[in-house]
């Protein structure tokens, strides 16, 4: 495997693109499956240092989509919807790449320093002196300031909202873990039956992978591309 050395990335798509390009791959479903593990590894390494709380949820969402793509390639018996997640993500990635390339062109345009400038002050013949807006009152100022304060709310609440979103994903992972713990042995297809939407399917995968890594469960598959059993290790 190629060593992963990612210096800096702007969001999950950028990270994904860097991983693909490092291995000189084209943007295809197969390459996405190939870099899935590395993506998750980088995520584990960098989550605390490089990824802000406001962006973590987006990184997790892409991780989940990657796992889904990989699992579909490995386990064709999984058929939970008609949408082709792989097509969708490769499409998105290709578009992102086009704008990323364009941003380099824009950067070189700016670097030429061909700036233009406009007048900074209204062109008036004489000094204006003191010219208050005739109808303005102190009460109006008061009302406007209250509005200004109220308008700060969405921004001030933003960090909480974003954190909530990542907690949701992490909570789901925790729920699924507990389920696996309750039953000593369970089938993957059974877990999937209960998944309400695509995100839960994805999250199930994340949870199981995590548990395998922690050596709390072991997964058995009788033959390739088949359903598998999850056993708790006591």
């Amino acid at each position, binding site marked *: 495997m190629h060593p992963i050395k990612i210096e800096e990335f702007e969001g999950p798509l950028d990270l994904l693109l860097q991983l693909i390009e490092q291995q000189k791959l084209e943007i295809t479903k197969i390459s996405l499956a190939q870099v899935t593990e590395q993506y998750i590894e980088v995520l584990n390494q960098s989550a605390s240092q490089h990824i802000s709380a406001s962006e973590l*949820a987006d990184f997790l969402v892409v991780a989940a989509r990657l796992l889904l793509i990989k699992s579909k390639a490995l386990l064709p018996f999984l058929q939970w919807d008609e949408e082709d997640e792989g097509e969708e993500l490769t499409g998105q990635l290709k578009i992102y790449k086009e704008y990323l390339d364009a941003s380099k062109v824009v950067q070189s345009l700016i670097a030429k320093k061909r700036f233009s400038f406009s*007048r900074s002050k209204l062109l008036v013949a004489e000094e204006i002196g003191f010219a208050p807006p005739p109808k303005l009152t102190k009460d109006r100022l008061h009302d406007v300031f209250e509005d200004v304060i109220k308008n700060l709310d969405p921004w001030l609440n933003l960090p909480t909202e974003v954190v909530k979103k990542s907690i949701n994903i992490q909570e789901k992972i925790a729920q699924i873990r507990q389920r696996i713990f309750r039953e000593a042995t369970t089938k993957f297809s059974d877990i999937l039956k209960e998944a309400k939407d695509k995100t839960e399917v994805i999250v199930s995968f994340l949870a199981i992978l995590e548990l395998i890594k922690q050596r709390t469960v072991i997964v058995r598959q009788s033959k390739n591309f088949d359903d598998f059993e999850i056993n708790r290790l006591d």
Partner: protein
Amino acid sequence: MKNLKSKIESLLFISNQPLALKKLADLTKTETKEVSEAIKELSVEYDQRQGGVIFQRIGDKVQLASSPDNAKLVKDYIKEETTGELSRASLETLTIIAYRGPITKAELEQIRGVNCSVILRNLLIRGLVESKASSAKMQNTYNITFDFLKFLGLSHQSDLPDYEKLNSHESIQKVLGSTGGQNQE
């Protein structure tokens, strides 16, 4: 028409901010449609003249600016300290907004694949992006400002390289319309 063009030119010349079509129509007591015609003609005239002053337009706003050919001369004269330095995230976001604007936050996030609240706020504060309530899209849309256009030294957004292609990206509609809208809040 010549008359109206002259009026618009006078107003733009003395003003220190971009003027909207609607505002120009009010000031000149003319229909917006006529103002729109006059502006188109003026814009073409300025483009053809290639003089020391350019005619910039973004959406329904217009402004006169010094030609980018004389950037250094003007910069030194007015003692501007513009460097045009932008972080990668800013550059990436501005590029998408420049090519796709006016664009909603959800559309922007769909392309970048990441929450853009923080970066948008930074760009709004730096005056490189502005937001507008859009009744058509039922939410705010964002576009680049004249200040950013001046960094680029262009008269119009559409003068950006490959504008046609990146503005009306075929598959982008598919992505934006898809159910994979993970980033909607």
